[in-house]
C-alpha cells in the first residue's frame, strides 16, 4: 500500500509526462505544416478517373476515330500534387504552359497550348483542346501532353518524366475516300457435305468503312469468276446496284455509301465429275476508288470469314465417300512407344554389328 505522499508524487510525475507529450505532439504538427508549406510545386498528369484532392482527373480523347477534317477533343488534367504553389527558382509565383502534341514533342506536331497563370498546392486544372484534323496525315496517331515544357516552375522533384503524358487512347484519322472490305461465304443448299451436282449459294458482303462514298464508276465494282469445277446457274441478286451473270462470271455495278454495305448473292452448281477430297476455291474481287476521283484504282479480294487468314479464298472440299471427315485436333507422334522400342533395338543391333565389323577390319589390317 502506497503512502499518501508517495501517491501524490506519482500523480505529479504522470501529469508532467502527459503535458510534455501534448506539447511535443503539438509542436511537431506545427513543424510539419510549416515544412509542407515551404515545399515547391510538383506537376503531373494523374490517370484518367483518379480522385484528386480537388476533383477527378480527366484524360480523354473523343472521338477516337474521325474522318480527315473532323474535330477531336482532347481533355487533359494537370495536378499540383505538392502543397506548395507554382513558383520560380526565386520563389516568385510562376506561370506555365500545358502543350498537347500528336506523335512527337515538336512544334510541327503541336495541337494546342494552354497558358496557366499558376496552381496552388494540391490544385489541378482540366482543359479541353480542339484538334482539327483537315491537314493531318490519315492513319493512327498518338496524343502527347507536356506540362511546363519551358521549365518555368521550380518543382519539388527536378524530373521531366511525370511532366509528359501519353494519352491511353490512340486516334485514327481516316482518309476522305472509300475503304472497302469484302467477305464471301458459301452454303450447300442441301446442308450436308458438298457432293457432285450439289447447289451452292454464295453470299458476298461488301462494306465501305471509309469516309467517302464509293460511287458507281466506269467498269464493274465487283467481279467473280467461278473455277473449273463450278458453273453458274444464272441466279443472282443484290441489295442495291445491279448483279449480272455472264457465262461463269458474276459482276456487280453500283454505289456504296460511306458506312454502308451491299450484299450480293449468286448460285453455282458443282460439276458431276469432281473427285472425292477435291478442294474447290473461289475468290471475288472488289474494284474500288481509293482517292474518290471517280476511277476504280484498287482491288480488294474477298475474304473467307470462317478462317483466321485475311483476304483468303472461300473453299470447300468434295466428300463422296461415306467415310466421315476427321474432326477436331489430332496429334501424330513420330514414333509410338513400341516403335521407339523397335528403333532402339534395331539401332543397337546395327551399332554392335558395325562395331564388330570395324574391329574385324582393323584386325585384318
Amino acid at each position: 500500500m502506497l503512502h499518501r505522499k508517495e501517491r501524490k508524487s506519482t500523480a505529479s510525475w504522470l501529469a508532467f509526462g502527459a503535458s510534455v507529450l501534448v506539447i511535443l505532439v503539438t509542436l511537431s504538427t506545427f513543424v510539419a505544416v510549416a515544412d509542407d508549406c515551404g515545399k515547391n510545386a510538383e506537376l503531373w498528369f494523374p490517370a484518367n478517373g483518379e480522385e484528386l484532392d480537388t476533383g477527378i482527373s480527366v484524360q480523354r480523347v473523343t472521338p477516337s476515330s474521325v474522318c480527315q477534317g473532323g474535330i477531336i477533343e482532347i481533355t487533359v488534367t494537370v495536378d499540383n500534387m505538392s502543397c506548395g504553389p507554382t513558383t520560380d527558382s526565386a520563389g516568385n509565383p510562376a506561370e506555365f504552359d500545358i502543350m498537347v502534341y500528336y506523335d512527337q514533342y515538336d512544334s510541327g506536331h503541336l495541337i494546342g497550348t494552354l497558358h496557366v497563370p499558376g496552381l496552388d498546392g494540391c490544385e489541378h486544372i482540366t482543359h479541353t483542346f480542339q484538334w482539327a484534323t483537315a491537314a493531318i496525315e490519315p492513319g493512327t496517331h498518338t496524343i502527347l501532353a507536356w506540362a511546363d515544357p519551358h521549365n518555368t516552375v521550380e518543382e519539388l522533384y527536378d524530373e521531366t518524366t511525370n511532366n509528359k503524358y501519353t494519352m491511353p487512347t490512340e486516334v485514327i484519322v481516316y482518309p476522305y475516300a472509300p475503304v472497302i472490305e469484302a467477305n464471301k461465304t458459301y452454303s450447300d443448299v442441301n446442308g450436308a457435305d458438298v457432293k457432285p451436282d450439289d447447289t451452292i449459294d454464295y453470299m458476298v458482303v461488301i462494306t465501305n468503312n471509309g469516309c467517302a462514298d464509293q460511287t458507281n464508276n466506269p467498269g464493274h465494282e465487283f467481279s467473280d469468276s467461278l473455277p473449273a469445277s463450278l458453273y453458274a446457274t444464272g441466279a443472282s441478286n443484290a441489295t442495291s446496284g445491279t448483279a449480272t451473270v455472264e457465262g461463269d462470271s458474276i459482276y456487280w455495278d453500283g454505289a456504296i455509301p460511306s458506312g454502308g454495305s451491299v450484299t450480293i448473292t449468286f448460285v453455282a452448281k458443282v460439276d458431276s465429275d469432281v473427285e472425292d477430297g477435291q478442294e474447290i476455291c473461289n475468290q471475288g474481287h472488289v474494284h474500288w476508288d481509293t482517292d474518290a476521283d471517280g476511277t476504280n484504282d484498287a482491288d480488294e479480294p474477298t475474304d473467307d470469314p470462317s478462317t483466321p487468314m485475311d483476304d483468303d479464298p472461300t473453299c470447300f472440299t468434295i466428300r463422296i465417300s461415306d467415310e466421315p471427315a476427321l474432326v477436331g485436333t489430332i496429334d501424330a507422334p513420330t514414333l509410338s512407344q513400341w516403335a521407339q522400342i523397335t528403333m532402339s533395338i534395331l539401332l543397337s543391333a546395327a551399332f554392335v554389328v558395325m562395331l564388330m565389323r570395324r574391329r574385324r577390319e582393323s584386325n585384318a589390317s
Partner: protein
Amino acid sequence: MTSRSHDKRPLVKRSDLLRIFTFVLLLGAVAAGITFLTNHDGAMASFQGGIATITSHVINVFGGRTSVSGNVIQSSGSFALSVVTACTGLFTTGVFIVAVLAFPASFLAKLIGVTLGAAGIFLINLLRLGSLFYVGVHFPDLFDRMHLLVWQSLVIVLSLFLWLLWVKVVSNAHRP
C-alpha cells in the same frame, strides 16, 4: 602353331564392350529425358509452336490453306493437327545422336554426323507432318494407316539408313 596363336586376335575388345555399354547407357538417358519432356509438354511449347509454324508454311507453299495457333495447325475445315513433343522427332534425333557419339570416329566425323543427322531427321519429320496433314484433310480414312504403318516404319528405316550412311561414308573416312 606359334604364329597361328599370335593371329587369333579377339573379335570384341574390352574397349568395344565399353562403347556398347556407353551406348546403352546414353540410350536409356535419352529415353528417360524424352519421356520426361513428353509428360511436361509446356516446357516444349515454343519448340512445338516453331515446328507447327514451319510445317504450316511448307503446306501453304504447296497450295494448302493453313493457319497456326500455338502448336496447332488448323486447316480451312474442321481438321487440325496438334504438334506435341512426341511429334517433334526428338526421340529419333536423340537416339541417332547417341549412336553417332558412341561409335568410334573422329571429332569432326561426329560433328558432321550430329549436324547432318539432326537436320535430316528434322526434314523427314517435316515431310511426315505435311503429308499427314494432307491425308487428314483429303483422305481421312487413310490417316491412321499412313501415320501408324507407313510413316513410323519410314522414320525408323530412314534414320537407320542415315546412321549406316554416316558410319560407311563419314566415320570411315575420319577414323580416330
